[in-house]
C-alpha cells in the first residue's frame, strides 16, 4: 500500500525533526489521549479532572517519544494518523487501567480460585453453569501449572486488567497473555472443548 497522502508531509517533516512537525504530532497525540480519557471518564468518576488531564498529558508525552523512536517502522499500511494514534491510546489506556486499580488489592494466591468458583456457582441457579464451574475448578486444579493458575485466576476469573497484573508481577502484557493463552488451551482440552 502506498504512503497515504494525508500522512506524507507530516512524516517527512518529522524525519527532519522539524520542531513545528513535532509540536503538530504532540497535539495529535494529546487529542487521542484526551479522547481515551473522555471515553473512560464514567468509570473514573472518583478521579479529579485535573489528574485525568495530567494522565492525558503524560500519555501524549510518552507516545511522542515512542512515535519518534519508531518512525522508521511506519510502513504506510495505514493512515499515518491512525498509526500514531495507537501509541497515545496505548499509553493512556495503560495509565487509566492502572489508576483505576491503584488502591485495589490483586490477590496472587494460586488457590484463590476455589473461593471464587464457589461464589460464582452459588450466584447462578442454572445447573449447566454450576456443572461447568465445577468441572472448570477441577481442571484448574489438575491441568495447570502454578504460574498458569495464578495468571488465569487473576485475568479470567478475577478480571484484573492485564497491565495491572503485568506491573504487579514485573512482566509484560505479551508474556502474560501467552501464559493465559496456554492455560486456556489446556483447560479446553481438559474440558473436552473443541480446539483447533
Amino acid at each position: 500500500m502506498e504512503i497515504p497522502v494525508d500522512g506524507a508531509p507530516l512524516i517527512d517533516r518529522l524525519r527532519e525533526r522539524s520542531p513545528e512537525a513535532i509540536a503538530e504530532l504532540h497535539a495529535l497525540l494529546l487529542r487521542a489521549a484526551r479522547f481515551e480519557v473522555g471515553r473512560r471518564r464514567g468509570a473514573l468518576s472518583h478521579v479529579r479532572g485535573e489528574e485525568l488531564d495530567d494522565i492525558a498529558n503524560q500519555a501524549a508525552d510518552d507516545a511522542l517519544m515512542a512515535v519518534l523512536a519508531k518512525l522508521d517502522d511506519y510502513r504506510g499500511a495505514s493512515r499515518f494518523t491512525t498509526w500514531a494514534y495507537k501509541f497515545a491510546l496505548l499509553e493512556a489506556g495503560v495509565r487509566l487501567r492502572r489508576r483505576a486499580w491503584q488502591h485495589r488489592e490483586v490477590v496472587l494466591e494460586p488457590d484463590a480460585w476455589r473461593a471464587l468458583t464457589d461464589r460464582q456457582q452459588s450466584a447462578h441457579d442454572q445447573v449447566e453453569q454450576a456443572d461447568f464451574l465445577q468441572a472448570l475448578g477441577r481442571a484448574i486444579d489438575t491441568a495447570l501449572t502454578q504460574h498458569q493458575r495464578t495468571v488465569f485466576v487473576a485475568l479470567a476469573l478475577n478480571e484484573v486488567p492485564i497491565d495491572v497484573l503485568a506491573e504487579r508481577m514485573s512482566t509484560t502484557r505479551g508474556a502474560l497473555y501467552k501464559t493465559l493463552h496456554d492455560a486456556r488451551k489446556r483447560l479446553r482440552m481438559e474440558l473436552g472443548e473443541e480446539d483447533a
Partner: protein
Amino acid sequence: MSKLLGPLGPEIGCDACFDLLDEYVDLELDGVDADARVPGMRAHLQGCPACHEEYEALRELAGADG
C-alpha cells in the same frame, strides 16, 4: 464460557496485535475484509479485553477523522 476459555482457533499475541492494529482498523474503515488480511486478529480481540479496548478506541477515533 467463551469469556473464560477464550477464542477457539489461531490467534495472534498482544505484541503482534499492537503492530497490526492500525492496519486492521483502517482496512475495516475502508470496507475491506480486515479479517482476511490480518488473520488471528479477531480471535485475539475476543480474548484480550485490554487490546479490545484499544481497538474500539482507535476505530472510533480514526473513524471520526473520516
